[in-house]
């Protein structure tokens, strides 16, 4: 694999910078610099790099490039017979949680409240290469917000990477469901309106107070004036800052959606629901991705063009679907990508077995014509985008977490094993060297 000159130059430059840094850290013994030599690195962000060297510092990737020179004194992990790729990111899971949930709109609920770190399934997922897990709140309607965790750690705090990863919204074709979504934003409108009125009133009150004070000043004796003034000054300072009323808990997530702090992952089951979703969203602008469980007879191809136009990101199972009512196969993920959509793959189910075969299932789609690079991206960077963690995980680039999978072959090959897993610079499973 030949890199284009531009990124090459950048890498060399960063190498130089890091090298300079390295000398300083070397001065203090026990520095946390580690260099890894591998046969190839699937960087996702910059394609495949043969004979790559990855420099890791404090659990983050400091630099990555082809055959980079490694300064003396830096610990080297020699994995020249292995391929690395970023740790897998599963953005849609209930691993270690039950499937019970209510219905209705409770956007303020957090899936992290259900997190039980001692559940055995997390360590098992880690063994199969899942280094980031998006756990969604179960239930119908708008059941709450997902949490992104590292499947490793003894406490809830140690596990959580990002609470409020996304707001889960389920949209089915009926009035109630569409209204629920619209109502969420309407509540924000109402709150904003109320606040505007309160602010206006507050400003008027301030003016009145000022006038009153002036009057008072004139009326009162000169002796008391000094004391009085001090008091009044104190009061004015208190009133000087307007404190908006705390919004209701269920309003906040929708405010965050509007401001871009939070994104939504909207679940639909067929093409009709997509049209109804567009109808419900109408003019509202916020960040949203779409989750579609790929059933065998799904008719999503009907709206592929429309989804592509918006360049939406879809969370799908890696599965070749059938044309409804027939045994005719179609590679729906490929069709959607061709139309302009982005695809994030999730294991076919939450079972350990599905995580084990996840890479192979994706490989099946590649065999059926899905682009290989996009397939790898669909297990790493795209789901990281869904979780709002694209700047931390999902690709092998400087400044990203050093979540690495060491594989003894092509990631999508059925016979390929996960030899070792590195989570934020620490080997948490297997051994290399």
């Amino acid at each position, binding site marked *: 694999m030949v890199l284009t000159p531009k990124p090459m130059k950048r890498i060399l430059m960063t190498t130089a910078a890091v090298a300079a840094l390295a000398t300083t850290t070397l001065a203090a013994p026990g520095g946390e610099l580690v260099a890894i030599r591998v046969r190839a690195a699937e960087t996702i962000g910059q394609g495949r790099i043969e004979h790559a060297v990855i420099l890791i510092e404090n659990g983050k990737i400091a630099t990555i490039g082809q055959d980079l020179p490694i300064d003396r004194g830096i610990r080297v992990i020699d994995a020249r017979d292995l391929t690395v790729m970023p740790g897998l990111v599963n953005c849609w899971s209930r691993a270690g949680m039950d499937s019970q949930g209510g219905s209705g709109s409770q956007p303020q609920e957090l899936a992290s409240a259900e997190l039980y770190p001692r559940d055995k399934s997390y360590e098992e997922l880690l063994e199969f290469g899942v280094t980031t897990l998006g756990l969604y709140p179960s239930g119908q309607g708008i059941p709450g917000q997902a949490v992104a965790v590292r499947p490793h750690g003894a406490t809830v705090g140690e596990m959580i990477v990002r609470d409020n990863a996304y707001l889960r919204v389920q949209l089915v*074709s009926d009035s109630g469901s569409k209204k629920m979504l619209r109502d969420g934003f309407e509540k924000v409108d109402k709150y904003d309106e109320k606040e505007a009125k309160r602010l206006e009133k507050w400003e008027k009150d301030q003016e009145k107070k000022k006038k009153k004070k002036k009057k008072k000043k004139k009326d009162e004796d000169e002796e008391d004036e000094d004391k009085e003034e001090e008091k009044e000054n104190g009061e004015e300072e208190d009133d000087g800052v307007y404190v908006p009323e705390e919004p209701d808990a269920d309003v906040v997530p929708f405010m965050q959606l509007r401001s871009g702090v939070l994104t939504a992952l909207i679940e639909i089951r*067929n*093409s*009709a629901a997509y049209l*109804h979703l567009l*109808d419900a969203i109408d003019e509202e602008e916020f960040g949203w991705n779409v989750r579609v469980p790929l059933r065998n007879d799904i*008719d999503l191809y009907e709206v592929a063009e429309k989804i592509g136009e918006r360049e939406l990101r879809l969370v799908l199972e890696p599965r070749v679907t059938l044309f409804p009512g027939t045994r005719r196969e179609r590679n729906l993920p490929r069709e959607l990508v061709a139309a302009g959509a982005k695809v994030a793959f999730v294991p076919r189910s939450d079972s350990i077995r599905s995580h084990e075969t996840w890479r192979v299932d994706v490989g099946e789609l590649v065999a059926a014509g899905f682009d290989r690079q996009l397939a790898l991206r669909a297990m790493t960077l795209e789901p990281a985008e869904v979780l709002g963690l694209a700047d931390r995980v999902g690709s092998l680039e400087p400044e990203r977490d050093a979540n690495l999978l060491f594989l003894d072959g092509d990631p999508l090959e059925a016979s390929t094993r996960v030899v070792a897993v590195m989570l934020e610079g620490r080997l948490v499973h297997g051994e290399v060297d």
Partner: protein
Amino acid sequence: MLRITHLFLAVLFGAAPALWAAPVSPVAFDDDEEEEEAEEDEDEDEKDHWIAVVGGDVHTGTGAVLRGATVVAKNGVIEEIGWDPWFPEEAEIVDAAGYFVYPGLIAMEAAPGIVQGGGAVEEEDTHGPHGLDTQEIANHLARFATEPQPTQAAIEDSYDPFGQNLILALATGITTTVNGDAAIKLKRREIDDIVMSEGSLQSFTWSRRNPAGKRALREKFERASEYTRELREFEQTKSKDDEEKGPSDKGVDKQVLAVLGGQTRAKFTANDRTDLLSLARFAQEFDFRPVIEGCQEGWTVADELGRAGATAILTPRDTKRAREELQLETGSTIENAAILYRHGVQIAVVPGSPDVNLGGIMGRDLLALPIEVGFAVRGGLPEEAGLASVTTVPARLLGISHRVGTLEEGKDCDLIVTDGDWMHYETFVQYTVVAGKLAYDKQEEVFFSHIRPRPVVEVEETEDETEPAETPDEETEEVDDDDDDDEGENDDEAAGDDEEGADEGEDEESEDEG
């Protein structure tokens, strides 16, 4: 010879408006050019959607058959039907040469699964009310009566414009159906403005098994008509003083009042001769025109029903055994629809089951609607009345006859293009146009495309024959060609296609099961 005169007249009339319009405009050209330019300007502003169904034998449903004519629609409404009409280049073209064009069919009865998709139909619902005994029908209706009717918003918010059952309904030629008491336009790929009307029919029960119910209904009608009389008297004698109080409407049933006032029509379910007779007399007494669903023994009292101005909604293939012990005409007959029709009863036809579900050898479900009508025609119903039974008559019942039911300028462009007479068992719907957009194309869907595939149009043929010097559009060339010898061509095509499709018949069956 007669046809040529018709053609000539039509061309003359078609051109007439343009001729009149010409002197009005400042720069007057002597033909259609002026009109064209004006309309093209409009296009740029609003991005109109045009469709032209070119060269088919257009059965308008009004009695007229325009051979080799073209239907042009703009934004879902028919602009023009005629020979060589103008339409813009970007118009969607449906080549109907050698085919038949009919108004889209209206299914008075359809399962919610057609409109809402999902396909999760309850086991109970797969059997319609027909063919059961009256008690079962009553139970069935009672169940429906307690279910709240979905509102317009609820229907529009749950409409599935991609459902497999919807596509199959379109493949049958159905472009309008009902859900609850609302008339639904079966739009494909769109969810806007699908509800056309609501609540045009008001259901009442009338059964000799329930004398108390009959009595109560009679009382309601008596009170309502009394109130109507009082109101009319009051209106006539009313002085100019507006504050004068009208008659009390205490105890007046609003639904019955609407029936007597003609705002809605009363619908009953009755199959039994005795019920039908008493119902006909009841309707005559209170001077309203009943809609009677079932009507299996209607032929025995057809004159009374005709006098009552009844409309019958029937399933011609339903059977009811004659009661041999009675010295009376009872039971069902193939001639039921024909006899009722002869006595002035309007006929609407519904399928045996409102679902998409092949029951029985020939199918008794929604997809067998044309066959169902064919059975009535076999029993003597005129063919025109047959078409009306699934177009104009249901349109009137649903209160949407100003929009659908026939192909006329100004009406909605809901039409079907078939490769034979629409009722024939061998006929396939080739294209279905809903709201001026192509909603179904046989060759583009998996269901029937492999059975007698549509022959590829040979371009050579059109070039060899007459070379029209005047007409610039290729489409219109084909129109002219087919106009000359379309029937001969049809036969040839049909024969050739049979052979091709024969070996693939099995595939189709297995698909239906899945």
